[in-house]
């Protein structure tokens, strides 16, 4: 009963956001839609992009009708709903879906987009209707993600109350709900990452074929959803899968660790060269690139020192520090292409709600350092740091190549299961009273932020 309610509640929240957010407002939504459209016309990856991406007449008409003509913030906008109804032309059905390419998404693996095909086919005869049908699928992904968090936490802690509270907590951040409400692979990647963590944590040295098959399937699903999924799959396997990967004889463990580390670096390097243009970055010289990278990392989290050159152009994402603009503001909720920001106090509530779990979680891990939960937590923290570092590396390469900032808070979403293992699972060591108080504070804070997120969404896009 509890799991059904969690599933339906998360799905309902996703649908509410999907309904409130106008069409094509999700991050790069037309591009992801175009990928599904290409698949629906029988084209298989890699998608043809010659000479450049051409959106289909159906997609172009929908974007023009619902976004360009009515949602741009111009002096004479917004129109009143009555005026919109007067001016809104009917979107013709059955327009051609022929086009080519999918801009930045065309190098993405196809798994997520293939799962959207049934929604595309059943969605109707206009691009707008098909888009909303695909958004329903994403709401489903979000609902399964909440359940997967419950499974993961229960696997580690064997405590139902804590697991259900963790599932609810993971479903509340507005950025998660936004990802569940728009056509974008972020929430699918987050679901597969959670399932991967669960499947890998379950592995034992004597794991059966079925367990291994589930783990391999989950890791593959992650790698086939987004390019960054390859990195995360390796990180999850190496960190949370360490008890299964390590040899039983203690004397072999140091050599094994080194070999595993080297192998991981090799695979990361291979995946990295496929995902980002490292060759172009390397043309700037190794030492200058490393120097720039270190300066970049400093300026990301700390005020720039006098001798440092600015690593970023000034923008809403870099003021006062990228740490705030990227991880906090867009990590809590940004609501689409036009970015409707939450009121400033809501970010502090979100930070307080997070700290409510993080600090007691660390204390519990320190208090029970030899418990399996604390060990798993330490591995998960290491995995989270490694994942964030990989994200920074992609941005360093991107900046070195002259491209702008690429990081947004939503990119950290797939690491939510690692955060759950790192900070929520250790709460099991507290007494039930203390644990309930900690979780209640965190749930209340994020519940409030979720409601403020919905209010912000309505306010920004309806007025």
């Amino acid at each position, binding site marked *: 009963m509890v799991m059904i309610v969690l599933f339906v509640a998360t799905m309902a929240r996703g649908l509410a956001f999907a309904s409130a957010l106008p069409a094509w407002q999700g991050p790069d939504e037309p591009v992801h839609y175009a990928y599904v459209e290409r698949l629906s016309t029988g084209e298989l990856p890699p998608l043809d992009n010659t000479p450049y991406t051409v959106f289909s007449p159906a997609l172009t008409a929908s974007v023009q009708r619902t976004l360009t003509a009515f949602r741009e913030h111009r002096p004479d906008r917004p129109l009143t709903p009555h005026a919109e109804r007067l001016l809104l032309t009917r979107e013709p059905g059955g327009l051609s879906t022929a086009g080519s390419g999918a801009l930045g998404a065309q190098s993405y693996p196809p798994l997520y987009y293939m799962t959207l095909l049934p929604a595309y086919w059943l969605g109707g005869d206009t691009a707008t209707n098909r888009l909303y049908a695909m958004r329903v699928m994403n709401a489903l992904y979000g609902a399964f993600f909440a359940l997967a968090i419950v499974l993961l936490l229960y696997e580690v802690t064997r405590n139902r109350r804590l697991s259900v509270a963790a599932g609810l907590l993971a479903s509340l951040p507005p950025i998660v709900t936004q990802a569940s409400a728009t056509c974008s692979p972020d929430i699918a990647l987050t679901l597969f990452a959670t399932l991967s963590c669960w499947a890998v944590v379950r592995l034992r040295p004597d794991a059966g074929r079925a367990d291994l098959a589930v783990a391999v399937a989950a890791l593959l699903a992650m790698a086939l959803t987004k390019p960054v999924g390859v990195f995360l799959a390796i990180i999850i396997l190496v960190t949370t899968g360490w008890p299964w990967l390590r040899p039983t004889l203690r004397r072999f463990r140091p050599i094994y660790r080194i070999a595993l580390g080297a192998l991981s670096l090799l695979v990361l390097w291979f995946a990295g060269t496929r995902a980002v243009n490292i060759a172009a970055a390397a043309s700037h010289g190794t030492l200058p690139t490393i120097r720039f990278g270190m300066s970049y990392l400093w300026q990301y989290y700390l005020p720039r020192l006098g001798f440092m050159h600015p690593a970023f152009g000034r923008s809403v994402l870099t003021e006062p520090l990228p740490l705030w603009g990227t991880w906090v503001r867009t990590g809590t909720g940004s609501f689409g292409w036009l970015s409707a920001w939450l009121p400033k106090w809501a970010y502090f509530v979100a930070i307080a709600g997070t700290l409510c779990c993080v600090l007691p979680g660390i204390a519990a891990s320190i208090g029970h350092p030899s418990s399996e939960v604390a060990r798993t937590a330490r591995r998960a923290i290491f995995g989270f740091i490694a994942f964030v570092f990989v994200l920074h590396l992609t941005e360093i390469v991107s900046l070195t190549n002259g491209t702008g900032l690429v990081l947004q808070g939503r990119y950290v979403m797939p690491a939510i299961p690692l955060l759950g293992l790192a900070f929520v699972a250790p709460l099991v060591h507290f007494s039930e009273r203390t644990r309930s108080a900690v979780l209640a504070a965190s749930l209340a804070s994020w519940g409030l932020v979720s409601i403020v997120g919905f209010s912000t969404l*309505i306010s920004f896009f*309806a007025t």
Partner: protein
Amino acid sequence: MRKLARMAMVTVVGIALTGAAVYSALPERISPVQATRNGDAETAVKIVGDGGGRVTRTFKLPPAPGATPRLGLALRPATYLKRPTGTITVVVGERDRCTFRPSQYTDGGTITCPVTQTGADTLRISIRGAAGPLALIERQSVSGERLAGLWVQVPSRSVGGRIRFVLTALSTTRPWPFSWPLALFCFVFAVCASLWLGLVALSRSEDLDGAPTGGVEADGEIPALKL
């Protein structure tokens, strides 16, 4: 009975929280907004010279849009980066008249005159006491005609009017199932269900399908999680 009371409380709080979310999203005021289609090109027509003075000009109005409640006419005076000094009087048709003192408009800002006479076809603008230049920013109609004033809808400022505005906006451009009733119903349900789940997960009196309470340290066989 206790469960019923809890359900009732959760439902009331959930509806109240969603109501508060919608209420806080209501705009304090809604600017008058355009009610007819036009092109993007803008032209400034100087009607008072650099030396200032007084002038009266009459313009032809395009027909008012039908079936639009609370019509108004929006104009954009421009004072070439100088502080407004002249008083602008707008007369639409025979009856509707508005006066804007210099403190009531800005350079390039919009002024709106409510119109009750929907058949009005003339717009008379008088300026007096201007110490500097004054122009009207004209927009081009779809057919290429220059428009000194644009027909707008003056939205209702009451709470009911603002709620209607927001709810209708939540339904426009969406496919019909994704209109405001779905958004609000789903969100109310999500809030109520989350409250209930939170209470169930954190309340020590709840059984949660016979869950062990001791966590990883609990002795004995640990049941698998029921899905």
